[in-house]
């Protein structure tokens, strides 16, 4: 199975339900009445699209209705277009440096969102393109039990070097050592940080300290500062994105666990407020379950029958 298939499989339940329920919501007639519009709004909300954006999308629909009656296919098309236009223009993949310095990728997010697994996936992705590339993992989650062991296993599987200290060590110290290693070896350095709720001031400061350590050593910020966001997350995802963006000036978002039934509609608000690229999506627990985010595909997969 290719990752595209896996994505489709993952989204199957999603797209069936969205499409089915929208089709059902439209009843027999070609035109939309108020109840039908309300129903469509609910369906969007059930995909974790925020209520204000769901209302916007439905308003766009009903303004089309004013000019002429529209059929089901058109309704779907307009909705899709509405979502696509809110998501497109921001796609991009990891940018690797082409000078002598290593590319540094700082990975952050709340607890359990999929940071460690995503690092393994991204590394595997790079490894596919360039089997000889030097890849280093910095085990900067020194807090969670066996977090270092977990990264160690992944490092083995994707043939990356692991730089680690003991549990409880200062994450910035780990990063410092990892930078030394990566400067010698070149290639790409991934920094696996501990999960932290964005409301915890001291933990967010710890993250900024890691950032500063890198700036001090390399003279620039980490090349990528990624937020790993669990697609199961509801509206709190907005708070997460804003707080992490404020702390480390994010360069992109990876949306994980899209193989589940959640649709990650919260990214519409994140795009609207922060204009951050959604770079990749996670669609499973193996190292190959990563897919570049393509807004057209994302929306099509969501709606196609």
């Amino acid at each position: 199975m290719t990752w595209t298939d896996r994505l489709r499989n993952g989204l199957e339940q999603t797209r069936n339900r969205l499409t089915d329920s929208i089709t059902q919501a439209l009843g027999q007639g070609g035109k939309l009445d108020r109840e039908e519009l309300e129903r469509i709004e609910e369906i969007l909300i059930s995909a974790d699209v925020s209520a204000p954006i769901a209302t916007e999308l439905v308003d766009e629909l009903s303004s089309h209705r004013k000019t002429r009656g529209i059929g089901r296919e058109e309704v779907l098309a307009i909705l899709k277009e509405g979502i696509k236009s809110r998501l497109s223009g921001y796609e991009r993949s990891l940018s690797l440096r082409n000078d002598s310095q290593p590319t540094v990728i700082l990975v952050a997010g709340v607890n359990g969102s999929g940071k460690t697994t995503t690092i393994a996936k991204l590394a595997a992705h790079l490894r596919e393109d360039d089997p000889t590339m030097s890849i280093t993992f910095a085990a900067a989650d020194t807090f969670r039990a066996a977090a270092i062991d977990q990264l160690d296993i992944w490092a083995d599987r994707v043939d990356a070097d692991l730089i680690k200290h003991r549990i409880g060590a200062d994450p910035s110290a780990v990063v410092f050592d990892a930078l030394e290693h990566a400067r010698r070896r070149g290639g790409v350095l991934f920094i696996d940080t501990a999960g932290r709720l964005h409301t915890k001031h001291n933990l967010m400061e710890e993250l900024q300290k890691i950032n500063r350590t890198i700036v001090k050593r390399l003279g620039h910020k980490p090349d990528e500062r990624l937020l790993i966001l669990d697609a199961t997350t509801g509206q709190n995802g907005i708070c997460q994105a804003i707080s992490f963006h404020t702390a480390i000036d994010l360069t992109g978002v990876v949306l994980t666990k899209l193989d589940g039934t959640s649709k990650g509609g919260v990214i519409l608000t994140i795009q609207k407020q922060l204009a951050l690229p959604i770079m990749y999506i996670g669609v499973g627990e193996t190292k190959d379950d990563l897919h570049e985010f393509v807004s057209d595909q994302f929306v099509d997969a969501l709606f196609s029958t």
Partner: protein
Amino acid sequence: MFDSLSSKLNTILSHLRGKGKLSEADVNAALREIRLALLEADVNYKVVKELMASVHERAIASEVLESLTPGQQVVKVVRDELTELMGEERVGLMLANKPAVIMLVGLQGCGKTTTAAKLALTLKKEGKKSVLVAADVYRPAAVEQLRKLGEELGLPVFEQGSSPVQIVSGVRDWAEENLCDVVIIDTAGRLQIDQSMMNELVQLKEVTSPDEILLVADAMTGQEAVNIARSFHEKLSLSGVVLTKLDGDARGGAALSIRAATGCPIKFVGVGEKLPELEAFHPKRMAERILGMGDMLSLIEQAESAIDQKKAEEIADRIRKDRFTLQDFHDQLQEMRKMGPISQILDKLPGGGRLKGSANVDEQELDRALAILRSMTLEERLNPSIIGGSRKKRIARGSGVRVRDVNWILSRFKEAKRAIKFMGTGRGKSKFPPEFLQMR
């Protein structure tokens, strides 16, 4: 981040103060805001819809109390409905068997392993010895994670066997031999649509007949919480839920969705990454959190029942006319005391926990102040300027304090007078209790 629901409601309903019953139009306007607030809190839209219907009826029937702004009144109805949906009572663990078995299930990364260790610690404090069972053989270092947690707790971790089913089949005997009271099974995270993994859980259940099967769910979960919980429940018939990561700012509407979907009680909440950070679940507190207002409402309720509204109005009136006396001060402190321990009051305010450390309103002080005031004559209380040196000595003796304390209360009175007067004029209408009872 989110605009305060109650301030929005108060704006919508500001013309209503003390108008009798809420009209249908007013209620509808308020409900629109509440609907948005609940959706923002990730309560499933179907749950929101049903809730709104029943709130609608109750709100129309309810009186607008003079003591509350009408917005608060509507919120109170919603809160009551939410609490009812959430279950009024707290439900603990039901561990009948010896050894008793607890199985933890849920999606990837929701907090199962951490919760397993937290439960073991909670039980340990009750004098019960647990064994942790490492039935996640899939995620890298999952067993090692549990091993480390077991080490931290000084509790055994059982991991003999190659498949989850094999591992759990040996554990009951082992637990009996090793005098463990409880067996806590940590399972791998899985999607509710992954049939083979769900079937594995069914097998684990058949082999161990758990006393408790707890769904561990992340408080940040969005609209899908309903489907997730329903699937796990249909497959396993859950006995309860643990809601994790409530230490963040997620409003936790998932709690309501899960409850609505399964009818299972939420038994615990996780409030941090460390092992002691597990708490009993309070339905009412959760309802208020979902609405985004701290424990504001129970405070309002308390104030409502404890404070004689007439008296408060009288005091307000005197303040306006600048005739606030020590007698009023006494009455006011007395009312405040009736509301219960100050620390408890502060706990209920958003950010109140932080206030507590620095608060200058501690209970002993309040009691001491009341004693001093009671030792004064009515004349002294109504006209504090007559209190000279010898009167101070007498008052101090009468209340068992030193003159210094009497001076202290007199200066506190002056401060209070200044502060309250400022409020009184600033707003046109002064109410008791003061400032801190206003919604955010």
